[in-house]
């Protein structure tokens, strides 16, 4: 019954469509001056406008328009000289006006593209994702369903409404359909969202935190028989809250669709919700009866008509494209392909660069972040960015090693201490009493002690079986609480046992 991914690919071709919602990081909301700060007491960041009190009117946040134009330019879009807001009408308790101010047939940015590169069986390959439109809209409030077992509306006793989020500026980025990715569809989708995130971060227009919902991806997937040019029925998966989930959700949907189609069943056009724990999606709202939003131009707002000179000014201020930046860093740091891919995959490029800018040697900086620190993050099951160690800490540690004040092994203890919240690297060194034992006399005393305790092993080494020295070196290191330089210990030990 359960199909393998290869089975799916033998028969079908996936077609993708991705909608990404980005919360802009403007200080005030899209249509009023309320604060956008995350996490305030419920309903404290509201006013007549975002509560839709009778008579209140929206006024467009100019900063949000600027941010949206910046995004459009970064995505190689056309910027409309004239665009309009429209009302999207539907009733929902957490939407105060019972319509959302959005853009419909006249988006502010349209016809762009993003190129992404992924590793394929034939080496790195570029895919072009075409952008249909980038438009502005406002977020809704939040409903909290209380009393049910699941936190969902079904079975809840009552619901609470928080309108703090109502009216936060959102930008929606919609791709055209993406065919031709074949079996790489999940990777291409992930790479696209990652690229978008990097572009938005570079533009400084959003926090782009998928976990907090400031970047949200809806993934549309459909399958068609290989060779067919008729599109299959799509499902739209919401709630995809991490890059890894983008990949998993799409892969899972492809298999689910194929199983339905192979069984002679139809794929339902519907919204589905991704579930992080199982990696599966569950059915949401059916979209078979297309909802009629009765869009019409928002009469309370005037059209957006950005001056051409302003657009050119914003174009001139565009930061370096993430793809170009990666290329530059790869060359500057002389990183092999595989290592570069590993850094991108682990999402440490920014921190490594910061660490290098603080004076660390690139290879060292990369090794720390990708190695020991990544390992500790995995162990604690948190994102690297959420660890309390900073690029400055790592740069300091690299400097201490270079100065001979720490060995690599001692440095790992310092990293651990910093992450445990014991302070800066020098504070950890001081508190833990970490220091390199450079005193040969102290080392010799330890060596003699160990050789006496493990006379048999020592004899083997004396007899010329040098690999056996490893155990003795380990014991000496233990004896000196790891504060010795292992290379020096080895040198002294072998000499002591007549092998130097």
């Amino acid at each position, binding site marked *: 019954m359960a199909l393998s991914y290869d089975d799916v690919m033998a028969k079908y071709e996936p077609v993708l469509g991705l909608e990404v919602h980005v919360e802009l990081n403007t200080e005030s909301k899209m249509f009023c001056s309320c604060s956008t700060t995350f996490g305030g007491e419920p309903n404290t960041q509201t006013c007549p406008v975002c509560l839709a009190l009778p*008579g209140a009117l929206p006024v467009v946040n100019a900063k949000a328009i600027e941010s949206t134009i910046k995004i459009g330019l970064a995505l190689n879009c056309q910027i409309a000289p004239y665009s309009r807001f429209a009302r999207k*009408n539907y009733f929902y308790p957490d939407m105060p006006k019972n319509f959302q101010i959005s853009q419909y047939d006249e988006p502010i940015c349209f016809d762009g593209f993003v190129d992404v590169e992924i590793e394929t069986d034939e080496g790195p390959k570029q895919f072009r994702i075409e952008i249909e439109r980038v438009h502005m809209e406002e977020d809704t409030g939040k409903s909290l369903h209380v009393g049910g077992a699941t936190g969902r509306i079904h079975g809840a006793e009552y619901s609470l409404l928080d309108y703090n989020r109502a009216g936060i500026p959102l930008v929606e980025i919609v791709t055209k359909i993406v065919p031709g990715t074949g079996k790489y569809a999940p990777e291409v989708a992930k790479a696209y969202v990652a690229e978008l995130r990097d572009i938005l971060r570079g533009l400084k227009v959003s926090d782009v935190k998928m976990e907090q919902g400031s970047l949200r991806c809806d993934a549309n997937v459909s399958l068609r028989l290989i060779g067919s040019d008729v599109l299959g029925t799509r499902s739209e998966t919401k709630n995809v809250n991490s890059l890894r989930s983008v990949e998993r959700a799409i892969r899972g949907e492809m298999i689910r669709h194929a199983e339905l189609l192979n069984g002679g069943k139809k794929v339902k056009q519907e919204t589905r919700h991704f579930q992080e724990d199982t990696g599966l999606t569950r059915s949401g709202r059916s979209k078979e009866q297309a909802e*009629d939003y009765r869009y019409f131009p928002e*009469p*309370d707002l005037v059209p957006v008509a950005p001056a051409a000179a302003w657009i050119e000014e914003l174009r001139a201020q565009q930061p370096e494209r993430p793809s170009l930046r990666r290329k530059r860093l790869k060359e500057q740091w002389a990183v092999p392909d595989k290592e570069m891919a590993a850094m991108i995959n682990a999402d440490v490029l920014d921190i490594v660069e910061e660490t290098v800018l603080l004076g660390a040697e690139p290879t060292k900086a990369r090794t720390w972040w990708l190695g020991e620190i990544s390992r500790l993050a995995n162990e604690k099951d948190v994102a690297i960015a959420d660890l309390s160690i900073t690029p400055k800490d790592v740069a300091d540690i690299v400097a201490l090693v270079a100065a001979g004040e720490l060995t690599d092994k001692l440095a790992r203890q310092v990293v651990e201490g910093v992450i445990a919240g014991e302070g800066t690297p020098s504070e950890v060194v001081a508190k833990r009493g970490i220091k390199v034992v450079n005193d040969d006399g102290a080392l010799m005393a330890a060596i003699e002690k160990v050789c006496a305790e493990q006379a048999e092993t020592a004899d083997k080494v004396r007899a010329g079986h040098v690999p056996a020295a490893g155990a003795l070196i380990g014991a000496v290191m233990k004896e000196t609480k790891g504060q010795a330089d292992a290379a020096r210990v080895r040198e002294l030990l072998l000499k002591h046992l007549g092998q130097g």
Partner: protein
Amino acid sequence: MIKNTAAQMSAALEKGETTSVELTKLHLDRISDVDNKVKAFLHVDGESALKQAAAVDADRASGKKLDPLAGVPLALKDVLAQEGVPTTAGSKILQGWKPPYDSSVVTKLKAAGVVILGKTNMDEFAMGSSTENSGYGPTFNPWDLTRTPGGSSGGSAAAVSAFEAPLAIGSDTGGSIRQPAALTGIVGVRPTYGAVSRYGLIAYSSSLDQAGPFGRTVLDAAMLHEVIAGHDPRDATSINAPVPAVVAAAKSGDVKGLKIGVIKQLQGDGYQIGVQARFNESLDILSSLGAQIVQVDCPSFEYALAAYYLIAPSECSSNLARFDAMRYGLRTGDNDGASAETVMNATREAGFGREVKRRIILGTYALSSGYYDAYYGSAQKIRTLIIEDYKKAFVQADVLVSPTSPITAFKIGEKSEDPIAMYLADVATIPVNLAGICGMSLPAGLADEDNLPVGFQIMAPAMQDQRLYQVGAGLEAALVSKWGGYLISKAPALGGAK
């Protein structure tokens, strides 16, 4: 004193012949004497009116520089939010709601020291031409209490006409200031769209709504116009330009050499004989004052009413969606674990009146996919054609004129069961709204057949509001001297007048 004009009251206050407190008391007395017959007010706030009046008197005593209308009382249409004062827009769905904020019009009135007596009755959400659609019962025309005062700002018009207030604020989406002004024998102005902030004006049809002044004279209306107009950053459609010099125009009244265009499509068939007679007489007067009368053709006006009854319901179907029982106003059916959807439906069923429901359904239909182009889309095209007609007409004439309403005040109940007949009451006023320009209605006399007031409508291009006042004042001066006093001084007594 209460039969004086606002300008006269202003002068008396300035000279110290009266105080605002005294003036306010006189009006509150008048309201308690006659409003049980007229029913112009939904809410009278005597206490805070007197408090406001006392504050103005104190300011005046301290020698503070005051606005000309400081201390003069006013009636406010219930469509405008006033902080802490019940605001219902004539609807049961907002019963008991007290806004936590002031509309921009109210902010400006308060800043000018205008004393707000209370909130006036209106057709629910400004949908209607008779004030019979109010959720709180009709208002009666002071000229004949068996007749309507027009609408939707019927309460405001009746208050001014019945001497309950010298000034009032109305709102005009399809004629809701001009038509009741015509039917009650007073002056009403719909300013250019965007001239007066809509912030805090409970929306009926956002692209058509505009608040404006009622007064007994052209000058009174101009003085109030200057108080409430001006750019407001809280309304994105507010025009950022200086307010036209309407008071100066109202004081001049010189029409010599002006070209006055008579719109062919807004007269003749369907216009009551006495209405047409007073209109023609007014044209003769303007001509005798040195204006040049020309005929203009506006062929698209034939479709204006149809376009209006697609655009306004479409916008209202969306604007009124917020009345959902979730955050304010009426809530019914909230029991036994009823879902939000059930509560919304029950509340909207109970809270909205028939005409409001009719327009919501009409608009929802007109915007639905598959019908949008045929209805809303076509209506917008007609709107463009009407704008073009006006453009061409304003090349030929400085102002355009027509009767304000094809008929005089009609009987209560006469049209309330026939929406189309009711809609026709606004046939001459609606084109102004669709084009976003400005219009005035001023009294032209009484129709011979029923002795009821007839309104004369003047229209001017956007932000040329001063032309309305210039021509209106010229005509008014000639008519008043002919009549030997303002038209409403000829109205039958309601009793209780002092």
